[in-house]
């Protein structure tokens, strides 16, 4: 009992601090769960000035994009998008590789096709590139 009397206040403060930290962690995980914003991200394919098609990022599919200038095969798989085949000369669109975050895009200039990921929540940026302080 004397031990409790001697250290009671300290133990209360420690318990309160640990509880506060735990609550903060819970709040954070709750706040950042729906913050993901990526679940509703969409893949927008445009040819020239027209929107060719809009597809959910998290539904796997292969889209054949046919334009008067040529043909591109856009593959959406596991949350990332890439151009798997193209009829253009330089194949820069294939070389761009996979994109997975909102705001990123793949462009095929010869075929005038562009593939970009757009987040539904209106946020173009997929987070910070870097923070300096």
């Amino acid at each position, binding site marked *: 009992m004397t031990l409790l009397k001697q*250290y009671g*206040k*300290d133990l209360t*403060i*420690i318990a309160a*601090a*640990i509880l*506060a*930290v735990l609550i*903060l*962690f819970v*709040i*954070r995980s709750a*706040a*950042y769960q729906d913050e993901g914003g990526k679940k509703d991200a969409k893949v927008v394919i445009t040819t020239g000035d027209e929107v060719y098609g809009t597809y959910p990022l998290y539904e796997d599919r292969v889209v054949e994009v046919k334009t008067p200038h040529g043909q591109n095969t856009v593959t959406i798989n596991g949350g990332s998008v890439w151009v798997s085949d193209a009829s253009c000369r330089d194949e820069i669109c294939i070389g761009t590789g996979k994109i997975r975050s909102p705001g990123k895009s793949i462009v095929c200039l010869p075929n005038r096709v562009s593939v970009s990921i757009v987040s539904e929540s209106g946020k173009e940026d997929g*987070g*910070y590139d870097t*923070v300096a*302080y």
Partner: protein
Amino acid sequence: MIRWPIRKRVPYLGLLLAFALALSYIEVLLPIGTGIPGVKPGLANLAVLLCLTLFSPVDALLLTVLKACLSCLLFGNMSMLLYSLSGAVISCIVMIAASRVIKLHLPVVSMCGGIFHNLAQFAVALLILHTKGLFYYLPVLTASGLVTGLILGILASLVSPKLKKILTRGEEI
């Protein structure tokens, strides 16, 4: 707490300041960092804790301000001063309140200091950067302040009685 006239305290305060700066230097040298910005052991707080238990709160506050300014001049840049000064002063004030007003034991005093050091730095970062994403770090910062503060506090509570005995050898407290 040792009640000495200021002329007798000054050399020991100087030693504590040197100790604090040496610890800051060790902290810069050792890669104890966890990769998370802002999470570091805060070894220099050991000197402030010892000062708080050995001498008066005013001495501890003075030591804190000098330590923050000098360690920024020596190991960092002046833009860091705002962060380190705010964190150090707030944590020192909290520790003074915890040890003298609420009369907690040293490990818990240090834990409170650690938490409030990080909270103050978080507040300053929020004021300067205006980024909502910082809130992601808040739980990590508080947790790290808690753990490092507790460990340093236990260390200080082991050292300070011996130090007090050495300092007051042969005289009435």
